[in-house]
């Protein structure tokens, strides 16, 4: 393999791993809602959404692992990397708050993922494109579900509206990190394999502001938080999340079930 090929593989692996980790970590966080959501139906809904995200993560992790030298499995990547090796954004790792926070995060994440996957369906990378074609249908349904809740709670009672706005204000500083394309190699974008996330922002803003306007909520005017997830710098909560996610595999290496 030439140096150029090897470099392309490395940058592609990093890119795919970033997508995979967003899906994996959000699935893990969302799974905590099972048996804690306000309604039984919502336990099932969030559990199902988490399962879709986990499925996307598995495909992406498997692909990322196939690009590394030596080849790694999805389990190697999910269970045996340490915190500094994870590439997900802070939005998906932050500890769960109230249900309003869960709804806001789901709206933000699914709106972003829908734009991202829709563009990746025409990626020149012939593994990413089919993964995206599958995922885009799923996240579209997630977005629809989140939208329904935002409308219901935002344009709801005084209490529900206030809590939705508070949730938006708390989560909004973490939105910018999704669209910071510093981690994506320019050559991958130019070659049509990857998407520069900055290009997704206008469509994201349009869709979000439509939903928020209909829900009588306002788009927060806040400064972005200091983040660094794409470079392995995470919040304190990430360590606890990984401890829970990884302890079984690490306590019983090689176990299967």
């Amino acid at each position, binding site marked *: 393999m030439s140096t150029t090929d090897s470099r392309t593989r490395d940058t592609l692996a990093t890119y795919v791993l970033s997508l995979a980790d967003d899906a994996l970590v959000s699935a893990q966080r969302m799974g905590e809602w099972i048996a804690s959501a306000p309604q039984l*139906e919502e336990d*099932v*809904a969030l*559990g*199902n*959404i988490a*399962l*879709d*995200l*986990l*499925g*996307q993560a*598995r*495909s992406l992790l*498997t*692909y990322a692992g196939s690009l590394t030298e030596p080849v790694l499995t*999805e389990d190697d990547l999910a269970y045996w990397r340490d915190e500094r090796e994870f590439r997900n954004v802070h939005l998906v790792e932050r500890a769960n708050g109230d249900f309003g926070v869960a709804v806001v995060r789901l709206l933000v994440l699914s709106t972003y993922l829908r734009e991202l996957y*829709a563009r990746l369906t025409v990626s020149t990378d*012939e*593994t990413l*494109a*089919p*993964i995206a*074609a*599958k*995922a*885009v*249908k*799923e996240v*579209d*349904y997630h*977005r*629809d*579900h989140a*939208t*329904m809740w935002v*409308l219901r709670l935002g344009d709801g009672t005084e209490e529900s509206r206030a809590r939705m706005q508070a949730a938006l204000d708390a989560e909004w500083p973490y939105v910018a990190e999704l669209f910071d394309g510093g981690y994506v190699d320019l050559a991958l974008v130019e070659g049509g394999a990857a998407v520069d996330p900055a290009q997704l922002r206008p469509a994201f803003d*349009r*869709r979000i502001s*439509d*939903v928020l306007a*209909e829900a009588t909520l306002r788009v927060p005017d806040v400064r972005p938080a200091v983040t660094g997830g794409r470079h392995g710098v995470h919040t304190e909560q990430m360590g606890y999340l990984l401890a829970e996610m990884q302890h079984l595999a690490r306590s019983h290496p090689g176990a299967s079930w």
Partner: protein
Amino acid sequence: MVTPLRPPVTHPAESPAGRRTSDGSTSEAWGIAASVLDPEVPVLTIEDLGILRDVGVVPGGGVLVTITPTYSGCPAMESIRSDILAAFAEAGWRDVRVEFVLAPAWTTDWISDEGRRKLEEFGIAPPVRRGLDRLDHPGGSSGSVLLTLSLRCPQCGSPDTRELSRFGSTACKSLWVCNACREPFDHFKAI
């Protein structure tokens, strides 16, 4: 785990002399794979469901079965794989491999008419046919919430039904209730 875009073997290769004819062995192999039931909806075969994509007899006599998941996270895939292997083993076939593909992405439009009839008999309202993918329509799903037209109750046939929950007992279903007979029922979501 997933090998997207590996081209499936679509034509049987020569089978070893003295064994079945290539055409015969392929259709027999298809029949074995097609008899495997979906573990979540055990009245449907994987053929009815449209997830059985290809069965090929490869040079040397091995069989390659290609299936595709309904949803990315479908937890039934491993169980379907082992059911396929068991079905072939029981029929005396060896050297069988099962591969997963993601492309083209499964759609509920691949559920056969027979499958739709079986679903309804089982008490699950079959998916509405999608035809054109709504993602192809610019702005088609922006802002507002998508609408699903009312479904016919699979128990009593009434069209007076409503959605209880957009997510149901498995990733592929939502939960509905009939206003006429008051019975809840599952709906196979159209994707």
